[in-house]
């Protein structure tokens, strides 16, 4: 009997507590920048696409919801011809972001992606690409990696010596 009264009392007292829930969508909760929501494709500081179509995100994805098709421009730079994410399968685990060697793919604090038609959850490259660098300012993969691409010749990347002269015998 006592315990029943105690329970009723506690329930009553909760009525006067501060609410933990907020009235979404009128009131938006704070989400930290590293929250794992909608996936975007970022650009490098020069404004070029960061994604090099290496397919590591797609292989890291546990639900196989990323499909990337590689293409190459005339200067030898790799880029994705197709970059498709099926968000109706995505579990927002962030493995793709972790796998990405160029910081191209990033998860953002946006989760408002509901659709009435599942087909609309399929995002193509044009839907995913944003104009900025996202969470990783300053990084440019092609400035670090050794391949020559348009605007960066051999030996011009970070920590690279000038290309060797095969004909020299000097030490």
């Amino acid at each position: 009997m006592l315990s029943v009264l105690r329970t009723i009392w506690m329930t009553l007292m909760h009525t006067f507590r501060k609410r933990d829930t907020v009235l979404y969508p009128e009131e938006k909760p704070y989400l930290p920048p590293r929250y794992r929501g909608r996936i975007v494709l970022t650009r490098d500081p020069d404004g070029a696409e960061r994604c090099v179509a290496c397919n590591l995100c797609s292989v890291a994805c546990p639900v196989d919801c990323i499909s990337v098709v590689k293409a190459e421009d005339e200067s030898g730079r790799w880029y994705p011809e197709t970059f498709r994410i099926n968000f109706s399968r995505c579990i927002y685990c962030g493995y793709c972001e972790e796998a990405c060697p160029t910081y191209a793919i990033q998860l953002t604090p946006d989760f408002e992606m509901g659709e009435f038609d599942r087909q609309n959850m399929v995002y193509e490259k044009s839907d995913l690409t944003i104009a900025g660098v996202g969470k990783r300012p300053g990084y440019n993969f092609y400035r670090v990696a050794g391949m020559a691409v348009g605007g960066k010749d051999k030996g011009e990347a970070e920590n690279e010596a000038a290309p060797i002269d095969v004909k020299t015998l000097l030490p």
Partner: protein
Amino acid sequence: MATIKIDGKQFEVDDTDNLLKVALSKGFDLPYFCWHPELHSVGACRQCAVKQYKNEDDTEGQIVMACMTPASDGGCFSIADQEASDFRAQVIEWLMINHPHDCPVCEEGGECHLQDMTLMTGHTRRRYRGPKRTHRNQDLGPFINHEMNRCIACYRCVRYYRDYADGDDLRVLGSHSNVYFGREADGAFNSEFSGNLVEVCPTGVFTDKTLGAHYNRKWDMQNAPGICTHCSLGCNTSPGSRQGILKRIQNRYHGEINHYFLCDRGRFGAGFVNREDRPRQPLVRADNGVLEPQDMDVILSSLKSVLAEAKGLVGIGSPRASLEDNFALRHLVGANNFYNGMSGPESHASLAALALLQEHAGRLPTLRDVESCDAVFVLGEDVTQFAPRLALSLRQAVRNEHHVLAEAANIPKWHARAVRDEGQHFYSPLFMAVPAATRLDDVATELFHLRPARIAELGFAVAAMLDDTAPMPANIDDETRAHAETIATALRKAKKPLVVAGTSLGSEAVLTAAGNVMRALESVHDDAGLFVTLNEANSLGMAMMSDRDVDHAFEAITSRRADTLVVMQNDLYERAQHGKVDAAIKAAKNLIVLDHSMTATIAKADYVLPAGSFAEADGTLVNNEGRAQRFFQVFIPEAPLQEGWRWCADLNSAIGKPVDWLGMDDLIDAIEAACPQFVGIKSAAPSTSFRKAGMRFPRSPHRYSGRTALYANVDVREKRPEVDVDSALSYSMEGYHGTDQPPALMAYAWTPGWDSNQAAITRFQDEVGGHLKGGDPGTRLLKVDPNVPEYAPAEPKLVQGWQAIPRYHIFGSESQSAKAPAIQERMPRAWFTLNEAGAKALGLAAADTLRLTIDGEIHALPVTIDPSLPDKTIGVPVGAHGLMGVRLPAAVSP
């Protein structure tokens, strides 16, 4: 045999092997770079360091290189030893100092030996922060991409290219830390085996350019066990595809045929599968004369009336199509109306080759056996252009002398550098009686440039020299006699002599002569071998199926015995003079063609049914040694494109004669029942119902990605994986994957920790570089005939006057690969070739046009001088780059 201990475990091993090979064979993970099962040890990269102990009580030990350490009896080793592991991690850190870390944009990524070894040694964090060395790349032509920055200077490429394939235009340039692996100038590699660099290079310096053009990672490929369709040797391949596009051809290890290497035609010649101009819909000739696409049902019903109203059917098969496709056509038209699809001379030569192979069925060495033959006599074959992979094996055969000398000097066979130094320029004898200079001349002991009949004459003379009871050709000159004497002496002296002959010259006499040489050799040797090359992937199978050729078929049409021509995967204009083909097509009321590529025959056809290429069909091919091998569908083509035999089954049903073979198993049973010569093809691969642990066998590696997004733009609901009704393979990554899966159903090679094709296969072999576990796939159909054959009379029909002889080219002479864009870039110009005296006699200079009448048809081509040709001989380029449908050799009057 020897007993050694590795990490406390005892093993029985072969003491003529080195420790690295032994350790890998026993399943240890020991990293290595410069070593390769076929290139052996040089001890250059220092990566395979292990601890060697004096005896079991020794706790100190010393670090040695496993690849340079004999696995001698009583040896005590440790791979896991901390000091040895640290050493290996240090070595890879040095090797990686200048590596550009561009794996994300490297085609090798995911199947890279360097990635594997880096992980295996545990070197996962870069410490070096200084500047990296860089290199400029070279343009290496349409096959291979060059990215020199990735080089770790293991020297594998030059050791393969120069020491194994005998190429001379890939070099180590520069000095000290500046070494550069490339050519002196931009340009395609000269060697016909350059494509193997892609797999031999442990990192991404040399990558497949044809793959790069539509790249995806190894783990994203849908593969199938394939058989190369570009020559008669039947090398095993692993074609990879994604989303219905054939991406690349990779080597598939076969311990008795191609083992680790393919030729460039096999590797880069499959591009025809992706061509836009392929027929992919049934086509019907409309009233305005244009081929127009039509629905499958409509065309089947119109073909129903065509076949019903036909006065008689003629079915022309094809030596480039599978037994199944040919048999299905044979069934449709009736066995009496089926023709083997080869030209007259080609068919006669193939039948002669078949007879020869049957006579010597017990002494047919495999391609791998060829490498251990120590004296070779080639009659008439320009092997590099005709059966390219054989040339690479012959190059190893001539080096047997190195091994003999090395053995005498107590040098182990795996000590590559020392064996080479000991062998120097001493080679096992290779005699080549060929019409003109070949790409194998550099290793030949002696060359005899003769016309086909004279080659036969020399062959007969050699036989007579070897065995007195063999007939000697009449009136041979002293020169021929002397040559024959030289060859006979060398063959007699050898332990394992080999005779190579084939159908390339279209001369039966050469094959007969080869038969006599072989018979004579059998009387002196127990270990003599005969190797016969044929024109196409299934030439031998077709010779076994039917002895009637295209000429007979045309005769049936033009004599009005039949009025409907059904052609299976064949271009008639490759098989006969164009006038004759035109006449036959004109005489036929209807021409029905089933093919996968656009051909001149399709351009004349009334009905075209799109048949599957090797990538879109299952089938069996019989290679030059009579080995039936199964290839499997790589991807399911978009309907209505389907297998040639399925079209035949549909046509059979349409005309009210439904067949009981609706799947591969039933079809193979039907072939075995109807054609006893093919009994055994069933065992070439496990049947459709075969399962291991209740599972099928996967076509794709287990991390095949993007499944739920690949087609999401079309429909967000995923398709069910297709079920393969024709084989025990699955169209997904699901199924049984293990080192004990049947080798005939191994679509790709991968084992944990070993992603690169050439290294992963180790786990599937009984010992490194040996046979596949479970036996190398394929069934040899030729049965040993206990009767000792008689000598054939030595009567070569010598031809006086001018003669046109065929000249082949690796890129161009084979019709399917000639449609591949990469091969087309390497196709040579078409020239008539003749020697200086001949050019002078005809009043021609180089580049002048020669008009030549062959079989009543005039062909005009520019002339080039080849001093190696015999007098009054004109070399005619045959194939897509030259002339098609010419019958050679032929007497001509220029």
